[in-house]
């Protein structure tokens, strides 16, 4: 209603200057530069594409994605889905992607834990502990990861053979064939239970959000963990029991050359994991240290003066503030782990780079091979970025 009475002078927008075709007009210059840059880029790309097409023709190199359906013929040692050399390249590449994810996800979790511990150790009051943590960080960060991977792999190969395997407890074997652990024979019921646990986790999360909203209304803290335990542990057990509660232990045993059965962690996977985790934890430790130090000591003192318990201080006061400093650089470390897992090719762990590399070598289709590698990493990187940005915005300071 104020519109009618408002002074018309305030409603006026900046006058629209007519576009003059003159060099002194900023907009004309902007368009000129953009057209120029885009034009040059398009010309370069066009030149490269025509060259490539001509070269492919001259060298009679096949193109297209038809090779994906052809028999791969390459043996793969570790596969999370069924695979044999008679399967096609597409399946082989899928095995590679899963292997990359396997090492990246486990690596991210372990590196976060180890890095946090070392970051805290660097702030320890015990001189020896903080000094050792400091030396660890310095040495690990100043050596190339590839060198470290080769070193770890050489060390792991130095373990005794399967017949002389180190056998600390029954069913656990450590040898140059890897680490073997007892496991169960996996059946449909187990997959169902795993899914149930996942669903339970999501439900618990939603429940805790709901309860927190209620707490905001009436100030009453509510207990979350009884429902959480029921959902995360009780649910899967019920599902498993309903499906007949299958349980057959699968204990590794030496038969012929190798161990059969059990859960195998190969030396290649182990070396890659150890190398990635130790290397990245050096960087994460510094991030965590900086994060903790960024929280002013006055915050601790003020919270204690209010009579809060140390656990509550850490959880409600210090951690939320430290996380704001920690999360953004942590995202790039997670991306680094994923990208660095491509060094697997040097120590014989068959990740996507290794398998795509063999594929392009056998088929001679370099462009398609490189495109696959890049597409896989771009989508993984994008997913991690999206997730971490979402998390970051959740914990970010809400400025009023």
């Amino acid at each position, binding site marked *: 209603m104020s519109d009618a009475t408002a002074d018309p002078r305030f409603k006026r927008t900046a006058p629209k200057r007519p576009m003059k075709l003159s060099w002194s007009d900023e907009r004309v210059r902007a368009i000129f530069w953009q057209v120029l840059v885009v034009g040059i880029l398009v010309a370069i790309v066009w030149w490269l594409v025509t060259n490539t097409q001509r070269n492919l023709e001259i060298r009679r190199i096949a193109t297209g994605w038809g090779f994906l359906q052809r028999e791969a013929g390459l043996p793969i040692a570790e596969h999370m889905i069924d695979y044999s050399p008679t399967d096609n390249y597409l399946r082989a590449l899928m095995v590679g992607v899963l292997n990359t994810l396997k090492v990246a996800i486990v690596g991210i979790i372990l590196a976060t834990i180890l890095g946090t511990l070392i970051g805290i150790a660097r702030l320890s009051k015990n001189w*020896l502990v903080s000094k050792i943590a400091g030396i660890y960080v310095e040495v690990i960060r100043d050596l190339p990861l590839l060198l470290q991977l080769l070193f770890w792999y050489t060390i792991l190969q130095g373990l005794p053979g399967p017949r002389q395997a180190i056998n600390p407890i029954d069913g656990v074997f450590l040898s140059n064939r890897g680490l073997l652990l007892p496991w169960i024979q996996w059946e449909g019921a187990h997959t169902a239970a795993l899914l149930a646990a996942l669903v339970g986790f999501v439900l618990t999360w939603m429940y805790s959000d709901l309860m927190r909203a209620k707490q905001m209304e009436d100030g009453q803290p509510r207990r979350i963990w009884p429902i959480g335990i029921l959902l995360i542990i009780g649910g899967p057990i019920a599902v498993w029991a309903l499906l007949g509660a299958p349980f057959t232990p699968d204990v590794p045993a030496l038969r012929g050359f190798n161990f059969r059965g059990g859960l195998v962690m190969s030396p290649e996977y182990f070396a890659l994991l150890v190398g990635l985790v130790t290397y990245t934890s050096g960087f994460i430790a510094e991030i965590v240290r900086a994060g903790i130090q960024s929280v002013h000591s006055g915050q601790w003192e003020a919270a204690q003066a209010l009579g809060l318990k140390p656990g509550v201080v850490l959880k409600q006061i210090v951690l939320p503030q430290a996380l704001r400093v920690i999360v953004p650089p942590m995202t790039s470390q997670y991306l680094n782990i994923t990208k660095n897992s491509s060094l697997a090719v040097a120590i014989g762990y068959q990740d996507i780079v290794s398998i795509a590399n063999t594929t392009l070598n056998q088929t001679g289709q370099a462009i398609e091979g490189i495109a696959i590698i890049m597409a896989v990493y771009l989508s993984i990187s994008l997913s991690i970025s999206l997730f971490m940005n979402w998390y970051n915005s959740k914990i970010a300071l809400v400025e009023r």
Partner: protein
Amino acid sequence: MASDTTLTPVSIPVPPEPRRAPISVVGPIAWVRANLFSGWLSTAITLALGYLIIRWAIGFIDWAFINAIWSVPNNQTQACRDARGVGACWAVVTEKHRFILFGTYPYEEHWRPALACVIFVGLYIVSAMRRFWRKELALIWIAALTAIGVLMWGGILGMPFVAQERWGGLPITLILSTFGLAFAFPLAILVALGRRSKMPAIKAICVLYVELIRGVPLISLLFMASVMFPLFLPEGMNIDKLLRAQIAIILFAGAYLAEVVRAGLQALPKGQYEAADALGLSYWHKTGFIILPQALRMVIPPLVNTFIGFFKDTSLVLIIGIFDLLTAGKTAIVEPAWQGFGVEVYITIGLIYFCFCFAMSKYSQSLEAELNQHRRR
């Protein structure tokens, strides 16, 4: 307690000799007690760690020095093989050190790559000194890099020509990282400016470039350089594989450096931009005289850290078969007589990398502290 004086019945006109604090508060024993044995948990950790460190150190000294074999006559490695497990075989390094350092460069010309390495180190030291942070520094870089090129290639001044397939070892590592930085830096500045540009097309191109490169591993770029670049060029033209790897590293480094530079541009107070605009400066004057000088100074420590990263990452060219330091080290142990002495060679190469990276990281830390000084007050 400091309140002692107030309890003294008579006031003493002459102040007492300052007493030294008791040994139990400031001496080494006190330090040990406060920093190593402050509680039962701390004591337990100290003792356990101390025991492990001493045991490990004795084992290492035994292996690396006391039982080690330092040289063997003409490739007779039997002595080394007998000492396996108890003593290191440094003989492999004694025999192969020139190969590890300089690869397949002609043996009698090794002084040239050696001199090139010295020039590189000198260049780093000069660049590190703040009194050289002037425009002449760019000229020093150009002169040094040209001198290195002349030394390595030769062909003039009576030095025979050496093709770049024969270069190897440490010079390759230094060339890939330093030339990578020198060429990626201007690229990075342009991209960082482009990413903050108001022109949508240029901004989109820069964002696409940075995010694309940062989303994929360096290995995939190196593979691209080794198997795809040759397809891009017209028939009859081809680029040497060292140069191709160098291009891949420049593209890679450019994207990461661009983000470092952008951080500096963003950290600059808005007033600087507005003041420059108010003075009526053109975009390039504003950028060249006002913005970049301040922004670049601010990002020198992260720049050094990024450079350490590249320096280590150049070792990845191993995977496409270029003879850098790591590849040369691995090739040195191909010869049958020397197979199986990988640990010794890795330790040696690790030491070389460590020396370079440690020096740079210490420098970057001290610089950061120095540059932040004015802010801390």
